[in-house]
């Protein structure tokens, strides 16, 4: 299930929803939570503004989730990405995976984050008192895709 939303989310509620499978066959839950960092290489920032491409964002995430589901044995996948204005230390993104086995849960969670960073039309603007500016894409995010083509 995928949500693009401006409101905050409760990690606890999301975790409990991942846990409630019919018969307790879930052995492993892996959660990634991304937070707004209050500084970057250029100095302190006040917060972020996140722009997205309505419609395509949801679709692009759904494609990544589907690829993860085909590749690993997963029971539940939950992705939330926030948009709009966010303050320092606020939650930006949630990826939660429930699986029978931890290796699948870890791999799928990191895979989804790696592709989300490269293929999903979301853009961060850092807000500061001096001048707000769009965040540059990192080459390290492109690098991290390579491992998924190995095996």
């Amino acid at each position, binding site marked *: 299930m995928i949500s693009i939303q401006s409101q905050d989310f409760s990690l606890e509620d999301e975790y409990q929803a991942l846990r409630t499978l019919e018969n307790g066959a879930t052995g492993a839950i892996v959660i990634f939570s*991304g937070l707004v960092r209050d500084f970057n290489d250029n100095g302190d920032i006040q917060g972020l503004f*996140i*722009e*997205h*491409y309505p*419609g*395509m964002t949801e*679709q*692009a995430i759904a494609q990544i989730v589907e690829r993860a589901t085909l590749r690993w044995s997963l029971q539940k996948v939950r992705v939330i*990405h926030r948009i709009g204005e966010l303050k320092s230390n606020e939650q*930006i*993104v949630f990826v939660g995976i429930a699986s029978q086995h931890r290796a699948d849960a870890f791999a799928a969670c990191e895979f989804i*984050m790696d592709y*989300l*960073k*490269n*293929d*999903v*039309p*979301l*853009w*961060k*603007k850092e807000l500061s008192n001096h001048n707000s500016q*769009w*965040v*540059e*894409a990192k080459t390290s995010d492109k690098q991290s895709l390579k491992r998924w083509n190995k095996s």
Partner: protein
Amino acid sequence: MVKVKFFARLREQLQCSELEVELAESTSIAQLKHKLVDGNPNWQQALASGDLLCALNQTLCSSDTVLSDNDEVAFFPPVTGG
């Protein structure tokens, strides 16, 4: 007629988020870009940026993709979500 959308830094540079363009048949996305620059010469630099991505009907695609009537095309900088 295709709908063209711009996002993030590119949207700000062009001061335009969306417009509609009448195209000849078998126009590619690369040709659409040229047509946009022809109509708005001050867009040249921003649209020439080598790292721009494009999407056709909300799916990432390459710039040699050929367009059809009623398509939705989007141009945007590399993404930075997550």
